[in-house]
């Protein structure tokens, strides 16, 4: 994976995980959600973490986003070990450097679109006027310039997710983390959201990390990390994917996988099912 041409940012590793394991305790049972994951995300990359539900995809995603701490191993965000950050530094990191996008949009229901977008800027200490101007600008950018004063329940799912994208971009983050951003949206709207993320990626050079099982995401991603059973199954670059952008439907997953050449940290070993 060092040969592809869009690795020009190779020198700047924005996120790096080293042998990350995560064990949950459920009663007397130990659930191994992650069994040693080592991966790197370059600055400015659009990366998708894919895998069936229960594969540990969401857990890995939370680790990378500094939302969860590994049982063993380390997560480095810009070469800083997340485990060493105190509560204040973590809050600062989340506020200034990471933008979050959720499957169910997670807008604050009592606030208007604009207030939702300006909230991270309020936390960051930006003045009211400045944050309002920037909020309007961001909302216009995602095509909601006319709806800045709408409450979340007055917006459609796609519109809410666009507000969420604007909110994620509020403090010019280095990373956007999107957890199943298209999961609650229909096909066309999901496509729009993916295009919008791609646009942010191109225009602002923001690193985008998504956890998804939406095949539409493949076309936009620079690299795809396949997670199975708490391990990295394989990591693929888009150029290696033998697929036509338009032809990827929900039913072709098997076909797509068959046509992919596996590479990366493939691990053989016991595959006992850790899901209950």
């Amino acid at each position, binding site marked *: 994976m060092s040969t592809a041409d869009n690795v020009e940012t190779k020198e700047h590793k924005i996120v790096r995980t080293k042998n990350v394991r995560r064990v949950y305790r459920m009663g007397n049972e130990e659930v191994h959600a992650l069994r040693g994951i080592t991966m790197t995300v370059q600055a400015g990359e659009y990366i998708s973490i894919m895998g069936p539900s229960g594969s540990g995809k969401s857990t890995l995603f939370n680790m990378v986003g500094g939302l969860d701490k590994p049982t063993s191993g380390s997560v480095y965000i810009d070469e800083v070990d997340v485990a060493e950050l105190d509560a204040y530094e973590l809050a*600062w990191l989340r506020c200034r450097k990471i933008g979050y996008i*959720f499957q169910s949009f997670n807008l604050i229901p009592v606030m208007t679109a604009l207030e939702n977008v300006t909230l991270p800027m309020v936390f*960051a200490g930006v003045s009211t006027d400045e944050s309002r101007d920037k909020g309007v600008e961001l909302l216009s950018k995602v095509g909601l310039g006319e709806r800045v004063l709408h409450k979340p329940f007055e917006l459609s799912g796609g519109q809410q997710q666009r507000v969420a994208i604007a909110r994620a971009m509020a403090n010019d983050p280095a990373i956007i983390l999107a957890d199943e951003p298209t999961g609650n949206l229909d096909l066309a709207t999901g496509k729009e959201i993916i295009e919008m993320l791609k646009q942010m990626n191109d225009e602002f050079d923001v690193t985008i990390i998504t956890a998804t099982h939406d095949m539409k995401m493949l076309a936009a991603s620079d690299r795809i990390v396949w997670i199975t059973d708490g391990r990295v199954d394989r990591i693929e670059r888009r150029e290696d994917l033998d697929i036509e952008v338009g032809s990827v439907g929900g039913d072709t997953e098997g076909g797509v996988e068959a046509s992919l050449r596996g590479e990366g940290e493939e691990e053989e070993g016991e595959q006992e099912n850790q899901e209950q």
Partner: protein
Amino acid sequence: MPERGGLFEEKDRAGVGRQIVLPWSKAFEISMKSLKIRFWRSMITMSGIILAIAFLMSIWTSNAFLSSFKIAVLEEQGEGAAKSPPPKTVDSQENEQAEEPIARLRKALTKQKEDLEETGLSAKDIWLVVLSLLVCVVGIVNAMLMSVTERIREIGTMKCLGALNGFIVKLFLLESSLQGIAGTAIGIILGFILTFLRTYVYYGGATVAHFPGGGIAFCALMALLVGSFLSVFAAIFPAYRAAGMQPVDAMRVEE
């Protein structure tokens, strides 16, 4: 657009780059909105405070009225004693008829004499007031805990956006105290009006003639303090529970 170098380079420049804030004005705004959108629920929670404080206020106010009457009667008696030492003359009977409200007052007062010694409140009254305030606190704690559970996602989202635990505590305490102060104010007014009416029906014009303005103002102030303190106190546990929520919770899909 904006240049993005190392993530933490800003952090090293202490000062503007590092701050994470939630100004009081903004916190106030958010709390007001949260209360407004759950208006009826807030009203129900508030009604607990209203009733408890109205009860407290009515006990204190009627006590203030009775004390005021008692002083008036004592003064009257002192004057009467000085004027006409023999108690049962035609004169004094006429006098009593002329000042009928005072006579009724005297009768009422002899009944409650024990209650009105020094402290002014009977043990039973104190017990009832404490009990009603306790019930009110339990009600607020319950309502706030419900509100926390209902807003796990909202809290998690705020933490993902960079909110410190302190912000969440601030928001919840502010919300509860706003609710508490409003409820207390209504309770004070309600308690006062009801007690005034009751006293007026019993004692008539004397209620106005011997209106203990200062005493009642003091009662109102005390009730306001008690109500505000209790509503903040009741919200402390729920607020800290809310602040302890992990941002991962915001990722949960279930509503």
